[in-house]
């Protein structure tokens, strides 16, 4: 791949009460899908939140589309609008209809007119089978529908990178598939994505590369076939054995 990387993470450290990320290095090329796997508390979510600057980083560099996100004077809002994030708990705005959830940022940030923003939103909603929900409020939707709306809301800003933070973890099992299908479609359409997930078979399916995180370190980084069938690191082996024992792979 000759194009410049979408995202470069170098020596990223982040501490809260204790150190959560202990030197993360990661590069995402355009159209790449990278999955982060690892136990809860291994630092997957924190890593995504640091990339989005929802958390300040202690040291290291995050370079997004050639811009060092920690350089002084950077316009955080300008960076964020080119990078979508979808959360485990959907976080839709409960006081707005689906359509307003999706059009808020394009209208208030990109300055799109109401008609233009709504046309664009409806196209996206149709693409993901949500057109008939446009006038509903989020609390009338199922978890799967809410999460798909959250994805559409992020896409409406035409992001160049999508960060997905365990987007199916809060869903009832029967609703997981519809959300994963949406992400598959995004991958097919060439979206660059960094995905924290507990869905191993999904990761195996969709990822170009899989990173195994433990205690704030990427212990192993490999193509999915390699990491799932012949993991090198003993910790990765243990983790995957536990997953297999739990019937999740």
């Amino acid at each position: 791949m000759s194009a410049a990387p979408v995202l470069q993470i170098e020596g990223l450290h982040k501490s809260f009460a204790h150190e959560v990320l202990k030197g993360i290095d990661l590069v995402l090329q355009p159209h790449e899908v990278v999955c982060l796997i690892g136990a809860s508390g291994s630092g997957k979510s924190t890593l995504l939140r640091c990339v989005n600057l929802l958390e300040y980083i202690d040291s290291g560099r995050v370079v997004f589309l050639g811009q060092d996100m920690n350089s002084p004077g950077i316009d955080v809002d300008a960076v964020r609008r080119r990078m979508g994030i979808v959360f485990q708990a959907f976080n839709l705005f409960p006081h707005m209809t689906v359509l307003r959830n999706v059009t808020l940022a394009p209208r208030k940030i990109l300055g799109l007119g109401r008609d233009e923003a709504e046309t664009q939103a409806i196209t996206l909603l149709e693409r993901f089978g949500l057109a008939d929900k446009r006038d509903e409020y989020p609390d009338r939707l199922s978890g799967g529908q809410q999460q798909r709306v959250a994805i559409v809301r992020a896409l409406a800003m035409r992001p160049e990178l999508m960060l997905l933070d365990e987007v199916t973890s809060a869903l009832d099992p029967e609703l997981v598939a519809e959300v994963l299908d949406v992400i598959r479609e995004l991958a097919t359409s060439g979206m660059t994505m960094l995905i924290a997930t507990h869905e191993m078979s999904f990761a195996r399916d969709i990822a170009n590369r899989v990173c195994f995180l433990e205690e704030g370190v990427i212990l192993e980084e490999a193509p999915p076939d390699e990491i799932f069938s012949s993991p090198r690191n003993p910790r990765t082996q243990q983790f995957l054995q536990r997953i297999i024992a739990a019937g999740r792979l």
Partner: protein
Amino acid sequence: MRSTLIALASTVVFAVVVVLVVSTSPGWPEVRQQFFNGEIFRDALHTIPSAFVLNIKIFLIAEAIILVFALLIAVLRSLPGPVFFPLRALAIGYTDLFRGIPTILVIYLLGFGVPALQLSGVPRGELFWGVAALVLVYSAYVAEVYRAGIESVHPSQEAAARSLGLSRTKTLRYVVLPQAVRRVIPPLLNDFIGLQKDTALVALLGPVEAFRQSQIEVASSFNYTPYLVTAILFVLLTIPLARFTDWLVLRDRRRQLALGAAR
């Protein structure tokens, strides 16, 4: 049906007992003459309701200003980060001060104190300072109500808005405040019921509103019935707002129950 009958019967019994106790009390004839004089009541109806219009004006003007001013205080108080410490401190100091001083003192201090300074360009009207005092006192309470609402909006809402690229101000404007205000409407209305009553305190500075007018009537007739008229007017004004508040609370609870059942 049965419970309605029981409620009706017990209410009737209760009312009869109260009426009996009051009307057989030794001072009742005197009290009836002094407080429930039909003739004076009718006379008072000619003057007091028109004075009561001033109470309603004071209330409406003060309320409109309070809604905006208190929101500003609440927003100042929820500004994050060390840079904004002075503004936060100012907001905290303000709410502490004006919730601490009795309303009646604020009215006296502002209403008699500020005009006495004889500053040019500063209004001297009693009405102006009466309304200002009510605004200052009630904004302190209402700001706290707003703040409770702002803090009840989960941080993940802010994270979602910021992650889309919305600035802090736009996040507040479009995501946090609309949810916060919606949640605190019942307690907000409760404070306004208090404000409606306290418009009578402005009389202390001189403007002839309903309470002041009834004082005048009492002084000329040596009879307390005009106070009763004023009391009834205040009750008539506050009851609709109180019922409206109840209805809002009930509607919210019903909606939540309905959603809970749907899950």
